[in-house]
């Protein structure tokens, strides 16, 4: 982190500040989505934005996710820089055609003639007792699509810097925010800064085992690392921050150093983000690994409502702790 004046901001405040600063800087940036204006979104992330920027730049939409996403694509191609708000990540199901067959491919299909500089903000993560249609983490789908970039901040600092990069990027970027983290605080510099895509961040250094964790799973991995420390295992926690582009090098180097790796992500485990990252590490650190790479994703079931059941589906620090302990033969 650069040495500048810092304050503590919540994740929500950090996102909002990034958006507000970019909107002040660049008149082409605007926001649209359901209940983004006076309501400031159900998570209140955008509170106060409409007061500063007005209803022509913070735009409430009907409940028409494909429709307003399509409008964002066209606006982005013709000189604007839209930020689209998809309230719950579960509703990405509705915008796949506009994002995947349109936004992601326009630049390529036109041989570079058109660009689509847009950001789609959405959420991931369970734990809110919201059940199967409001708790999914569908970033694996987006990461699978050439032409999209995929961002998964895990701290207010990262959220602000990555959001600024996303808005300044000339490509469609999908930005996932964990619903449970909006109120978590962290230091954020006052000065303008950006964080490049494709640069993993070592959230904690360690020697014995690497824990790669994304988004909501970063604090969980850090808590597991603290538990591991108590039994004499030094865990390194690495946060890729963007699943595409993916900083394969940092992940592989950490695994080479520690010789063991666990990958934790809140998406469904099968054919999910943990598969890609585990495979990258298993290949890149093949001759250095002392144990198979361990994957820990959300249980491969639709997310249940009942608290004891839902809790069983989300990776916990205890599960990570046990896995790491076993891998380190402790």
């Amino acid at each position, binding site marked *: 982190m650069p040495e500048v004046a810092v304050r503590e901001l919540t994740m929500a405040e950090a996102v909002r500040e990034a958006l507000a600063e970019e909107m002040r800087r660049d008149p082409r940036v605007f926001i649209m989505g359901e209940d983004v204006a006076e309501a400031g979104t159900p998570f209140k992330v955008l509170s106060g934005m409409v007061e500063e920027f007005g209803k022509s730049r913070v735009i409430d939409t*009907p409940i028409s996710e494909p429709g307003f996403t399509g409008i964002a694509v066209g606006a982005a191609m013709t000189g604007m820089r839209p930020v689209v708000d998809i309230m719950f990540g579960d509703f990405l199901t509705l915008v796949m055609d506009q994002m995947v067959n349109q936004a992601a491919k326009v630049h390529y299909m036109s041989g570079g003639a058109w660009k689509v500089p847009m950001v789609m903000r959405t959420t991931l993560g369970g734990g809110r007792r919201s059940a199967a249609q409001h708790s999914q983490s569908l970033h694996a789908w987006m990461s699978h699509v050439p032409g999209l970039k995929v961002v998964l901040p895990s701290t207010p600092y990262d959220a602000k810097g990555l959001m600024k990069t996303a808005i300044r990027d000339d490509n469609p970027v999908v930005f996932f925010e964990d619903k449970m983290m909006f109120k978590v605080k962290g230091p954020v510099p006052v000065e303008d800064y950006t964080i490049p895509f494709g640069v993993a961040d070592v959230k904690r250094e360690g020697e014995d085992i690497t824990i790669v964790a994304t988004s909501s799973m970063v604090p969980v991995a850090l808590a597991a690392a603290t538990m591991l420390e108590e039994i004499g295992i030094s865990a390194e926690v690495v946060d890729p921050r963007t699943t595409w582009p993916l900083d394969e090098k940092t992940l592989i180097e950490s695994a080479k150093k520690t010789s063991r790796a666990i990958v934790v992500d809140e998406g469904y485990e099968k054919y999910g983000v943990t598969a890609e990252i585990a495979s990258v590490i298993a290949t890149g650190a093949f001759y250095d690994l002392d144990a198979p790479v361990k994957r820990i994703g959300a249980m491969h079931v639709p997310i249940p409502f009942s608290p004891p*059941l839902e809790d069983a589906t989300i990776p916990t620090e205890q599960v990570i702790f046990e896995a790491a302990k076993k891998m380190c033969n402790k």
Partner: protein
Amino acid sequence: MTAAATESGTGPALGAEKLLHIYRQMTRIRFFEEQVNDLYLRAVMPGLSHLYSGEEAVAVGICEALRPDDYITSTHRGHGHCLAKGATPDRMYAELLGKEAGYCRGKGGSMHIADPASGNLGANAIVGGSVGMAAGAAFSAKMRGSGQVAVCFFGEGALGQGLLYEVLNLSKLWNLPVIYACENNMYNEYTHYSETTAGEILARPAAFGIPAEAVDGQNVRAVHAVAGRLVNDARAGNGPSFLLCNTYRYRGHHVGDVNREYYRAKQEETNWLTTRDPIKLLGDWMISEKLAQQPALDKIQAEVKSEIEAAVAFAIKSPYPAVDQVKEDVYA
């Protein structure tokens, strides 16, 4: 406005017994929801819930026109539809609390209660998400020649979802026995529907050749009358229809939506509560028509109150599902 769209009055008179049953059903929903709010405030209920209070005449007026084996699909604001179609409060509360005795063994919660026994295909947390499902049930009924009809309940917010228009077209082309019941409570969450809805609502289904009309959603007799006619039409093979039910939700978008002044005036709420309450309107009318006396209504209220209290107690006492059930029901 097209020819197909007419404003309906009340239909043929209902007997006192049926009216008292309707009164009981609406009261059951109201008391049910008030207890849900209470469970939320007492932090007994996990997550959030969208209350149906104020809209009871819509669900009850329509469902009382249906056969037990007719189908409905419902929404995130689904408790009213569910009760009106015949579910019982005890297993519903159990579901809301995530208990094994719930309709979905605790896996669904407030937004996913489903009940094959009463023809309820399920609440749905995707706005407009069940429009196809309802038409599909009607399609199946038609193919099987079962004489069943399907009612698709949805809020006016779902008018924003393209799926609706695809399905309106398909159901008219295939002449399906489905009734689209649009509950216009004037708000898509925190946004007034006039900010999200261009043109005229009734002209939309009419454009697909679907007969469309509006009804006062606070007048259960009116709702029931028009629903009866539409259900008969559908059952007779006359295809789909669209009913716009103008109504109001008394409480917040969900139980946590307490400070609402930034999007709607207190005065507006008070007006609806005091002058348009569907339960009070029916009770008053029955008394004025000498179809019932106050004590009979009071008795219903008391009975429902204890039924609801018992149901809450049942749910609170019920056990959570064993954790290993989490892996069950993924595949049939």
